[in-house]
């Protein structure tokens, strides 16, 4: 989960390493993920989201499909 200046820089980075291009997340989406995941992390009753919660969080910001499914076996 790395930062890049642009989608073009991501494409160059993936090509140079022979890696598949995977989802690119906008900064506003990344912030929404950060808030959903960590807003309550310092509270004693905080816990990591379960699979269904993860799907809901991802879908809520437009991230859907097997890549975002924590129980998918599509990627081996």
């Amino acid at each position, binding site marked *: *989960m*790395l*930062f*890049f*200046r*642009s*989608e073009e*820089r*991501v494409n*160059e*980075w*993936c090509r*140079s390493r022979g*890696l598949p*291009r*995977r*989802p*690119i*997340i*906008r*900064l*506003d989406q*990344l*912030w929404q*993920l*950060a*808030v959903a*995941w*960590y*807003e309550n*992390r*310092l509270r*004693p*009753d905080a*816990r*990591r989201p379960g699979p269904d919660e*993860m799907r809901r969080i*991802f879908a809520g910001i437009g991230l859907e499909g*097997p*890549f*975002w*499914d*924590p*129980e*998918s*076996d*599509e*990627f081996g």
Partner: protein
Amino acid sequence: MQFDTQVKTAVYRWTVETTKPPTVVEMSEVVGAPARDVRESYRRLRASRVLFLEPDGETIRMAPPFSGVPTQHCVRVGGREYYANCSWDALGIPAALQEKAQVSSRCEQTLEPIRIEVGREGPEPVPVVAHFAVPAAKWWADLVYT
């Protein structure tokens, strides 16, 4: 409060205050329990994906969003500097602390510096994106790479 919850809460409080996760010995003194009990608690917290430990089974590498080792993602909050595990966690630190922050990182392709001002309502718009190379189902298979 259950012991593991007590340890987890104390680990995060320590990390927020000192910017680095505590050792087993340090945590043992904080919670007033033998080091053996804290070590076992760390391992249970690892199993439940709350903490990520080094191969020694007791050094905290990650108390997400905080990193126990320096990374390219530095987050300044007030007078403190934290390291984050990844781009997501770099924004996760101000989200967790509910404070303004300055994120200093880099473009992984060009290595040029990236600076993001994060307010309480989120980051100011800058030309930056994040690439997620690993699918969600595989994140904990190799969390350092992820």
